[in-house]
């Protein structure tokens, strides 16, 4: 199958780029890791920290909606009424939040 000379040149350039040249590849991705990827993570970490500080900590009032906090079958652990990642502070039971103060 023959190709135009332009197509041949383009194909060679793309092949070189994807193989990262003879010594460019690892260095390129190392630079990307430390200049783009990891700083990106740091920025998002800072953003999270700032946003969490600005939160109010009160839970909304408890409403016993029938479509939430479903208990068709008890869980096979504990008293069967607490999910695996149950959090007393943020997760109400079907009867309401646990403990005197949430």
């Amino acid at each position, binding site marked *: 199958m023959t190709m135009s000379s332009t197509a041949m040149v383009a194909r060679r350039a793309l092949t070189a780029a994807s193989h*990262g040249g003879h*010594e460019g*590849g*690892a260095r*390129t*991705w*190392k630079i*990307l*890791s430390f200049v*783009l*990827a*990891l700083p*990106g*993570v740091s*920025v*998002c*970490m800072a*953003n*999270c920290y700032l*946003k*969490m500080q600005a939160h109010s900590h009160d*839970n*909304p009032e408890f*409403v016993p*909606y*029938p*479509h*939430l*906090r*479903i*208990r068709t079958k008890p869980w*096979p652990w504990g008293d069967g009424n607490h*999910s*695996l*990642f*149950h*959090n007393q502070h*943020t*997760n109400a039971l079907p009867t309401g939040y646990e403990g005197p103060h949430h």
Partner: protein
Amino acid sequence: MAHQAHAYHMVDPSPWPLTGAVGGLLMTSGLAIWFHFHSTTLMTLGLMLLLLTMYQWWRDIIREGTFQGHHTPPVQKGLRYGMILFITSEVFFFLGFFWAFYHSSLAPTPELGGCWPPTGIITLDPFEVPLLNTAVLLASGVTVTWAHHSLMEGERKQAIQSLALTILLGLYFTALQAMEYYEAPFTIADGVYGSTFFVATGFHGLHVIIGSSFLAVCFLRQVQYHFTSEHHFGFEAAAWYWHFVDVVWLFLYVSIYWWGS
């Protein structure tokens, strides 16, 4: 010494497929026993058997490939096809959970309040920890690519560094997700919102743990000089799997965390 007149690998008889199957049987029936009779013995036994099977089966493959030279180019090609087919099957696995999510959220029923998110559900802010998780996985995709190029160029120390960084990012994601699971104002029992959220993200998290483990094995192998600059398929398979895990997260983030909030 016997010789073969072809480049393929006729594998020696092995007990691991049988022990794996028995392990699977004990785990599944053990799960049912746990649910109905509150005993975890059978399930634990099955889990032990499965873990032992995985360790010994994959150890044998490493012996056959790295030390005995059975992984010729045609054999490697077959392994590549195998990994691609496996990942494809996993794509379909996740497709099912996305189907469930979109089915429930595009036409929310009256019981939920006719809206999505359902009445009473406080969703997570997509621009807090979920966004950080996205950055973490994308960064790990960059570092694993750095690792691959390092391997291909024979840069041993860089390969070890970049692989370690990738694994740490994977562990960081898992830790962040575990914290999110604990802090979330909704649980798996909160109707179809809770079910779709925790089943889809939960299976994803499991795949992150599997992917991180796969990369960790590659890390140990690289330290022990198993890989060459031309032949490192185990690493490539791990990297493919890791990219797949990253892509699934991107779909989860856009669909469930962002659009669904």
